[in-house]
Every structure is written in C-alpha cells, then in structure tokens.
C-alpha cells in the first residue's frame, strides 16, 4: 500500500494499534503503511517520554550553535564542537548493516532503557532531590519546534541545553558500561587463569 492510498480510516486504525487500543487481529499488518506506522509509534514514544539520546543529538547541536553566540556561556563553543563530531556517529548508527532498514523509531525504542533510567529518582542520595536538576521528561518537543528556543530567554535555553548534554552523556555512559562489562568477560577469565597458573608454579 502506498502512502497516497493510506486513507484516514487506515490512519485511525494504525493510531489505535500504536496506542494499544486495537489488537493486531483487527488490522492486517501487511496492509499497514510502514512509514505511517513508524511515525505514529515515534509520536507515541515521545508522548510517553521514551525518546532516546540518539534523537537528542540533533537538539544538542542546535542548542550548542545558538549558545555559541551567547558571550556569557562562552564555554559552550567546545560543546558545539563535540556535538558536531557526534553527528557522523549518528549516521553510523543508522548505517549499521545488520539492522539496515530499521528506522530511527527502532533506535529510540532500543535506547528506551536509558531513557527510563533518565527519568527515575535523580537524587536518591542524601543530597536531596531538590538540589539536582530534574531530568526533563519531554525533551523532544523542543526539537519538533526549534523556533520556540529563540523566543525563550537565553538563560533558560542554556539550562535546557545543559540538561540535554548531561542526559545525553548519561545515556552514553550507561551503554559504554554495558559494552565494557561484556568485553571484560575474557579479561576476568584470563586474570583468574593467570592466578591459577601462578599458584600451580
């Protein structure tokens, strides 16, 4: 089914499906327009605050660019550099061969683990929650209408940009920890073997 043929009725059905208001049986999945489904589930994810750092990269770059012009927050010049560097990385992500064809929606959902982490008790320590920046639960709204940034006070923009960068960094750290612990498995094994060999000698 092409996009042109995707009627309002189909859209309503897809919407219901994504919102879990209709079961898969009522809708023949083969007939579903894939683009529409992907777009609707992304909207769903955003509304349920499941957006991921991979999407936020764009926002960070935009914010950073704006902040470059703010003399007060001159340090952000560096941030914009790192964010720009991050762009090709994102391309990489999408280019991955094994998952070719999976849209950004899929990536968003996969990193939802990180997003879930992001919205939980920031500040379970004795520092108290109020001392900590509350993590934003709907950052994607900003990206949908970037114009709104320019109409907001610069300071607020800066704070928001910072939160994004921190959010993004936390996501990156969590994934890195996961990857390192997986790769470290053989390190642990060799360390034990070395010890055993030493004991045997």
């Amino acid at each position, binding site marked *: 089914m092409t996009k042109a043929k995707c009627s309002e009725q189909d859209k309503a059905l897809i919407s219901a499906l994504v919102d879990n208001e209709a079961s898969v049986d009522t809708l023949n999945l083969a007939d579903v327009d894939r683009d529409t489904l992907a777009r609707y589930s992304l909207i769903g994810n955003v509304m349920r605050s499941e957006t991921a*750092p991979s999407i936020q990269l764009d926002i960070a770059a935009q914010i950073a660019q704006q902040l470059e012009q703010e003399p007060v927050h001159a340090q952000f010049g560096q941030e914009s550099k790192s964010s720009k560097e991050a762009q090709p*990385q994102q391309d990489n992500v999408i280019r*991955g061969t094994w998952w070719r064809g999976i849209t950004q929606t899929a990536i968003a959902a*996969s990193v939802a683990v990180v997003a879930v982490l992001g919205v939980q008790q920031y500040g379970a320590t004795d520092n108290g929650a109020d001392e900590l920046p509350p993590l934003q639960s709907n950052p994607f709204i900003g990206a949908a209408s970037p114009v709104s940034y320019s109409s907001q006070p610069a300071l607020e923009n800066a704070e928001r940009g910072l939160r994004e960068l921190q959010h993004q960094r936390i996501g990156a750290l969590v994934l890195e920890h996961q990857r*390192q612990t997986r*790769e470290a*498995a053989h390190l*642990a094994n060799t360390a034990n073997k070395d010890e055993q060999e030493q004991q045997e000698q």
Partner: protein
Amino acid sequence: MKYLYVVLVSLWLFPAQAKSEMTAKQWLDNMATAVKQRNFVASFVVVKDRAMEPYRWSHGIYEGQELELLTLLNGAGLEMVRVDDRVTYYEPQAQPYSVKTSAISGPIPEVLFGDVEQLAQNYSFVLGNKGRIAGRPAQLLRIEAKDQDKYSYWVWLDTETSLLLKSAYVNNQGEFLEQLQLSHINVSETPASELLEISRREFPAPLPRNEEPSYQGSWQIGWLPQGFELLKSDRHKLNLNNELADYYLYSDGLVEVSVFVQRPLAGQRPSGSLTSGATTIYIHNAGAFDVSVIGNIPVATAKNIAESVQRPL
C-alpha cells in the same frame, strides 16, 4: 558386628542426607552444571523499580556444540547468542560483535555459570528456605555480601533440575531492588528448533584481545569497596556521543563497576545519582573534572568511589 551396623546405618542415611544437607555452594555448583547441560526454553522478566524487561532464554546441546540464545522481547531488540565459548551481541545501535567467553553477560551475573568459589572472599553462601516459584518446588540460596558496601544476590533454584527460577539483588535492609523471575520453563530431551538455526549462522570473529599493556590512567582512585580489582583502564571515546573519557573497570567477581573521568560540562551542576533497579549511576562534579561511577552497587558506595578520585600529584 557393631561396625557392620554403623556401616549399614550410615549407608542408609547417607543418600537421604545428601539431598537435604547439600550446602549452598553445592547447590550453586549444581546450577552452573545444569544450565550448561540441559535442553530448555524459558521466559523470564526482570523487574527494576517501575520498569520491566521480558526475555526469552533457550539453551541446548546440538551435535556436540553448546548453544544458548537470550533475547530481549521489548523494543527494537537485543539478541545475545552463545556457541560454546563465543558470545555474539546484536544490538540496534552498534555493529554486532563477538567476545570469547563462556557465559553471556546479561541480566544474570556470569559468575553463577562458572565457579562461585571466587566469590567466597567477599560473599558468604547461605542456604535459605524452600518455596514454590514458577510452579516448581524451589530452594533459596543467598549470596550475602560480607560488608555494607555491596548488594547481596539471592537465587532460587528448582529442587529437581537445579535450574534457576528466580533471582534478586537485595540491599542490606532486605529489600528487593531488581528481580528476575521465570514465568515458564520447559526442559526437553532435544534442543529447541530456534537453536538449530543458530548453529548454521555466521558470526563476527571475536574481538582481538588487547595484549599490549593498557594505558594506565594517572587518576588516583582513593577508595574502592573490599574485593574490587582493576580489570582494565584506558582512554577512549564513548560510542554514543564521541566524548573522550579516562576509563577504569573494576570487578569483585559478582558485579562490575565503571569509573569515567571526563572534562566537566559547563555550568553549576550539583553531584547526584540515578538508579534503575540495582544499577546506580553517580555523577560527581569535582570542579575541574567530572567523575561518573556506574555499577550494581549501593548509591553510597558509588558516591564514595566518585568522591575519592583525585588528580595525580
């Protein structure tokens, strides 16, 4: 004649005692063996605070090869495949990669599939109550941390097959932080068909082992909980956002802890923590640098580690 009595009585008693007086350590060893020898298909969920992750887990022996498949069922997917001593990870955000190891690094600590003896210095093994889990008679084994700086790990095993039925990270108040619970397990004579497909699959070659001495970061990490040892340290760019970090990985055999030292983000950001189930992320703003600690450890422990990091003298 007296001796004969003693021998007869002890012979009669011994088999009965063998099962009832199995130590916690023996139970855990039995599980490690059972998990590697049985053909089974299981479903389990991991519950972390308000989040939940459902997995499908299958294992079997086919043509002399050990095959294991662990799949995350929600989201875009995460697939972990083990063939003998090679584990391959398939994720949406990265190229698939293989690691040469005999256990999948997933929601269950790998040490449980190996030799738990290496935990004996920092944890004690305690035999718990019997109960019923996932419709099966179960025995609780507690791997109790010997100090307050770590979480304990509780394991419930099937009394018949010694397979894992439930496990949990427990803090020192006895609260369950992250639970893994099987909802279904099917032990069969032959391996599941999905495993046969794996045996025909092509895998990326295992990552080259880094033999050259790794970069020794010069940061001084002043405090670590008892029993944690350095596995590796280097300086590398993070996969997701390309930020540079000095990296340290520690392990006590049960859990791993990552320490990242990075250029600080701009602005006045207070230090703070995030938790999800047993996982703690503590971000410490030390002024000239940021320290982030991640691992399945209590918040206080992560905070102490992060605050102990100092610039080299």
